[in-house]
Every structure is written in structure tokens, then in C-alpha cells.
């Protein structure tokens, strides 16, 4: 497994919660640096995220909502940190793929994790019918 790490940023307890789920499933929660935008100004969100993103081996920033202040801050950070990749709308399946992914580069890894995360989104309309999307493994 790679030593890459990522910042996970979002509203309220999103990051803490989803990272705790990663830990429960994989035991590898240390891969992620969780961050909450709770009660912070846009400038403070950016400053604190920038500090976290400068930790060793951070290649990627995951955020919860494309329109959220963490995503806005991440876009600003990427302006002078082109080595980082931003993934918005992150879900648990996406983060797990990031944890267990191979040694591919940051951009390719992010794209792969996004594909798997998208596949995990599914509707299950009744017990007798197949869902509209794929499924992901769970614990």
C-alpha cells in the first residue's frame, strides 16, 4: 500500500465521521487528516486547510459538497499547489479505494477512487429488483 495521505474536509462532523468509518473498516484512518469548517470564516478555512495540506505525503483533498466553503478553499489552495488533486462529493467508498489503492500517481488514483465512489451510489427500489448502480463491499 502507498504512503500517500489526504485531507478530508467538510461541514460539521462530516470528516471526523467518515474517517472514523474508514478506521472501522480498514484500520487505516491515519491516512486521512480530517477537517471541519464549523464556525470558521472563509479565510480561516483556507488557512487551516492549507496548513494541513502541507503535511508530508498529502496528495489529495477530499471535500463533501462541490459548493461548500471547503471546496472553495481547496480550489484556492490548488492555485499555488498544483501538485494536489481535489475530489468533491467524496463518499466512503471513494476514501476506501484511496486507502487500498496501488502506487499509481495522485491524479490517476483520484480518478480511480472517484469512479469507484460513483459506482457505489445506487438506488434499491425493492428487495426483489436489482439496483440502478453498482455495489461496494462493506464490513
Amino acid at each position, binding site marked *: 500500500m502507498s504512503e500517500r495521505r489526504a485531507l478530508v474536509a467538510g461541514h460539521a462532523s462530516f470528516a471526523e465521521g467518515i474517517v472514523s468509518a474508514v478506521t472501522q473498516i480498514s484500520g487505516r484512518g491515519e491516512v486521512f487528516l480530517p477537517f471541519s469548517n464549523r*464556525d470558521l*470564516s472563509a479565510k*480561516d478555512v483556507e488557512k487551516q486547510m492549507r496548513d494541513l495540506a502541507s503535511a508530508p505525503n498529502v496528495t489529495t483533498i477530499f471535500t463533501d*459538497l462541490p*459548493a*461548500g466553503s471547503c*471546496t*472553495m478553499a481547496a480550489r484556492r489552495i490548488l492555485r499555488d499547489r498544483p501538485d494536489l488533486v481535489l475530489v468533491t462529493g467524496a463518499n466512503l467508498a471513494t476514501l476506501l479505494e484511496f486507502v487500498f489503492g496501488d502506487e499509481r500517481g495522485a491524479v490517476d488514483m483520484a480518478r480511480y477512487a472517484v469512479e469507484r465512489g460513483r459506482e457505489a451510489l445506487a438506488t434499491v427500489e425493492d428487495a426483489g429488483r436489482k439496483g440502478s448502480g453498482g455495489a461496494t463491499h462493506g464490513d
Partner: protein
Amino acid sequence: MAIELYRIDDRLIHGQVVVGWGQPLSLEFIVLVDDEVAESEWEQELYRMGVPPEMGVYFDSVASAVERLERYQADERRGILLTADIPSMAQLCADTGAIKRINVGGIHHRPGRIQRLRYVFLSPQEEEALRALEGRGIEITAQDVPAARPLPLSDMLSAEGVR
């Protein structure tokens, strides 16, 4: 009136605005009034990327918003007007006389400000500016999201810390 909400929020366009208010109010456009953003195409593109494609976004300086406010208010669509700070909103109110209610949605920590609510920190000058606006007959309430109870200015200014 096409502008449903006049909001002071130092995050400008973000989740609470686009989703939290945007969906229940069925907002179709955002007017972002900020002198700095109005000067920067990069900043405008950044904010535009955070908004669903079907939602219009207009960028104005305070001066250009004063000129265009009547047109925004006559728009058939439902919109929200945002400023990042109290002085910009106060200027807009003073120069147009066309704003009757202001929503304080998020003014966060900065040196010199006192915390009044979880999401509202104010300096003495900012408190005075809000009082002056209310003195001109403008209703000022604090409310971060639609599900929260709007707090009148007097309650906001008498609050001591987290609520």
C-alpha cells in the same frame, strides 16, 4: 420582490446559501456584491463553479449593485443578494433605500470582534452599524439556515457567546 433574502455572510457562496437556502426558497439567481470579487475574473469563476448550472450568478461592486438593484428586484425569478460584510450592505441600503430586511448569516471570528452567536462575531463598530440600519427602519435578524429561528438584533446583541 424578486430578491428573497439580503444576506451578510463572509463565506459568500457556499453550502448554506446554495443548498440550505437555495432549495427551500427555490432560488434561481445569486447577486454577489463585493468590490474585490467584482475586480477578479478568477474569483468570479471560482464562485461560479460552486453554483448549479441552472442558477444564475451576477457579480457587482457595491457601486454597480446600487445601479442595478431595481432591475434585480424586478426580475421574475427568485434571487438572493449577498455581501461579505456589514459596510457593503449598509452602503447598498443607504444609496438605494430599497432594502427592508437584512439577514445576518455568518460573520466569523476576527481580532477585535466579540462572539454574539455561534456564527456571528461583531466589533463595536459593526454593532453600531447594525443599530443604525435598524434605526432607519430596516429589520435585522440573525439566521444561518432556514430551519433556525430568526433572532432580532436586540437578542443578537445581548447574546453572550454560543447559542
